[in-house]
């Protein structure tokens, strides 16, 4: 065939470098609306669920049983299940129906029922519902800080810049697992240097992650993964009970947590039991509820290239974040994984959570270049800041971060680098030189940093952990070495665990360490003039565009 020049050009476009696939329902390669999903049902005898979604209690697997026994409000289940799914779908977009009413219905429904409600909604209706159902009135955002060399000085400076930009939570991980304690400390120091009250986590293997929290090096955890089929959960060495137990371990130490799930993870792990991705994700959300966990990170996360390869991918991801909110769970709504070569496409995906707002619009905006992102790349990176700010300005939407001046970013970076230099010296960790402090202040990526001896760093990290070093040791070091302000902030973060108020649903801190959560900042959206509206003060910060023309310039 003689080729059309236009079709040839189209083939070369970034979008056509992405992978795409047709649905394969039998193995679960389908986002939603699968003919193999169960039909909704709940039968209750003497307060016990004896049938759920067409399965009798004697046939329940361990996940079904856990959800049926702990995840569903049986006191209202008969009324909720008797309601037409289409009617509930309409209530979601009806401004006269309050959020609480829908939460009550969904918490008393079966997983298949909630899945069925979603099948009635188009994406604009989902966005409308998301705006109303988000648990916390004020939206917020989270950032990733990592680098390929696990360079602690750079990590600390990056965290400080991100906190200055207003991210409510910062997340790191390691390229090399043995770096974990150093990365956790670097992130914590940077977070509190940039903005008081910024929460920080270090995503690691579960025992390590818990220990970092117990030592006082992290203030929340997020990567407690749950799956919607028993096979995958058990293959990962878990049960519903082990997850609930881990959640309690964090709660007992006053550390905030949320679970992680997301459409596509089960089929990616090879066992979807022939169900749609959304149905399995709804099971994860009920499991989260059943474990008593306040929040979830979802929106596909790591499986997004697979979900986005199929029809209905974006719609299913919007649905899963919305369902979390309908179950009154905090949602950190994905947009944290690179999945497409097309800027058009990744921007459109983001808009589905950016415009309505979620508790965390992304569960990891890469505040670093994507090639330095050890989470394998985010949907946004440090080169996108001005796009993000401009979109907030264009739409008068709060995406959770504010523009900063270059000199302010540099000052925060430099201070954080000097602080970690001091902490390393006092803890007897390998030296951080003045040259490294200078490089981290101005760096774009790990390539701008003098290389460190990784083997020595990791050995020192292990020795430090063996010695029992904890958060208080670092507070003391900062206090004794002239960094009183940051010492006070770290101390306050440790105190907050004893107070425990930040374990409430959707909790974050303002700069005065006041908790902002779904309890004291309840989303009361009931149509225009209600819910979250930008204050004049906030809008003045969001519309800042330093390069823009000012009337007085002319």
């Amino acid at each position, binding site marked *: 065939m003689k080729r059309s020049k236009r079709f040839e050009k189209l083939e070369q476009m970034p979008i056509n*470098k*992405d*992978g795409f*696939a047709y649905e394969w329902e039998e*193995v679960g*390669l389908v986002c939603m609306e699968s003919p193999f999903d169960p039909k909704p049902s709940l039968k209750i005898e003497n307060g016990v669920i004896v049938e759920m979604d067409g399965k009798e209690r004697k046939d329940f697997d361990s996940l079904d049983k856990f959800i049926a026994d702990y995840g569903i409000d049986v006191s209202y289940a008969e009324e909720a299940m008797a309601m037409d799914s289409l009617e509930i779908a309409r209530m979601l977009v009806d401004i006269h129906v309050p959020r609480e009413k829908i939460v009550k219905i969904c918490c008393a429904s079966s997983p298949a029922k909630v899945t069925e409600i979603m099948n009635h909604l188009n994406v604009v209706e989902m966005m409308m519902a998301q705006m109303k159902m988000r648990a916390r009135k004020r939206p917020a955002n989270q950032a990733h800080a990592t680098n*390929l*060399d696990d360079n602690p000085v750079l990590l600390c400076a990056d965290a400080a810049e991100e906190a200055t930009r207003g991210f409510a939570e910062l997340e790191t991980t390691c*390229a*090399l*697992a*043995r770096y974990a304690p150093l990365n956790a400390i670097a992130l914590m120091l940077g977070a509190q240097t940039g903005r008081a009250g910024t929460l920080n986590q270090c995503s690691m*293997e*579960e*025992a*390590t992650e818990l220990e970092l929290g117990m030592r006082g090096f992290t203030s929340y955890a997020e990567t407690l993964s749950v799956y919607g089929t028993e096979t995958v959960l058990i*293959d*990962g*060495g878990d049960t519903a009970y082990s997850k609930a137990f881990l959640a309690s371990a964090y709660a007992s130490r006053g550390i905030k947590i949320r679970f992680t799930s997301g459409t596509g993870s089960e*089929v*990616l*792990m*090879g*066992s979807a039991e022939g169900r749609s991705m959304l149905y399995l994700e709804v099971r994860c959300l009920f499991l989260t509820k059943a474990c008593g966990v306040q929040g979830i990170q979802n929106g596909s996360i*790591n*499986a*997004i*290239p*697979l979900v*986005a*390869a199929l029809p209905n991918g974006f719609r299913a991801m919007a649905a899963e974040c919305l369902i979390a909110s309908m179950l009154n769970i905090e949602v950190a709504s994905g947009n944290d*994984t*690179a*999945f*497409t*070569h097309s800027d058009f496409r990744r921007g459109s995906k983001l808009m589905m959570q950016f415009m309505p707002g979620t508790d965390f619009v992304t569960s990891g905006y890469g505040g670093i270049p*994507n*090639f*330095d*992102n*050890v989470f*394998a*790349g*985010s949907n946004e990176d440090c080169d996108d800041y001005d796009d993000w700010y401009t979109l907030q300005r264009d739409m008068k939407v709060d995406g959770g971060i504010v523009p900063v001046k270059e000199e302010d970013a540099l000052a925060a970076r430099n201070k954080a680098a000097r602080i970690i230099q001091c902490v390393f010296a006092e803890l007897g960790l390998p030296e951080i030189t003045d040259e490294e402090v200078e490089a981290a202040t101005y760096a774009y990526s790990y390539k701008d940093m003098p290389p460190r*001896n*990784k*083997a020595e760093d*990791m*050995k020192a990290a292990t020795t430090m952990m063996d010695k029992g070093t904890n958060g208080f040791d670092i507070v003391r070091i900062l206090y004794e070495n002239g960094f009183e302000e940051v010492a006070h902030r770290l101390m306050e973060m440790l105190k907050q665990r004893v107070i425990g108020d930040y374990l409430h649903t959707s909790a974050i801190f303002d700069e005065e360490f006041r908790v902002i959560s779904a309890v004291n900042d309840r989303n009361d959206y009931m149509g225009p003039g209600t819910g979250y509206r930008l204050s004049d003060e906030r809008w003045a910060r969001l519309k800042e565009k330093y390069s823009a023309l000012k009337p007085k310039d002319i």
Partner: protein
Amino acid sequence: MTEAINQENAILEVKEWKEALPGQSADEVVIALSPAFGTQLKKSIIEIDLGTILKELCAGIEEEGMKPRFIKVFNSTDLAIIASQGSRLSGSGICVGMQSRGTTVIHQRDLVPLDNLELFPQAPLYDEKIYRKIGRNAAKYAKGENPEPVEILNDYMVPSKYLIKSTLMHFKEGEMMDKSKKAMDMEVVF
């Protein structure tokens, strides 16, 4: 100097030999393979012959004066579980775990399954040279050394290109999984 291994010579045959028992020899490094490795799947996600990859790993291990030992794990497709089983069977306590797609980890006996010494999660980025370096570092850990880790490679567009293929390859691993079958010592013929 190390010589390059000719891909065409690396035709692989992987046969079950006997039930794997904990190794007694401190100079062995276990290479633990996933259920479909070398049987249903012969090439990695970027079409490198799996025989070539194993040869490079072995060459790296032998260059450091240690001995490779092959086992296969059948009761899981999860790389962490595969490698952690391997490390507990390894005389030195060190194991290189591998899935057929090429995803690799260096594991040590006293670590919990999801922990590791070095992880290589982005299989499409690894060429033969990287696998030799992995073998070399595994052997160094087995000797009690603290080597400089193999360089970290990262391409954030890898998942968008390969995740579907990776999922389909993982289905194959799942088909060969047998929950009740114990790890086996394997005979590997190149």
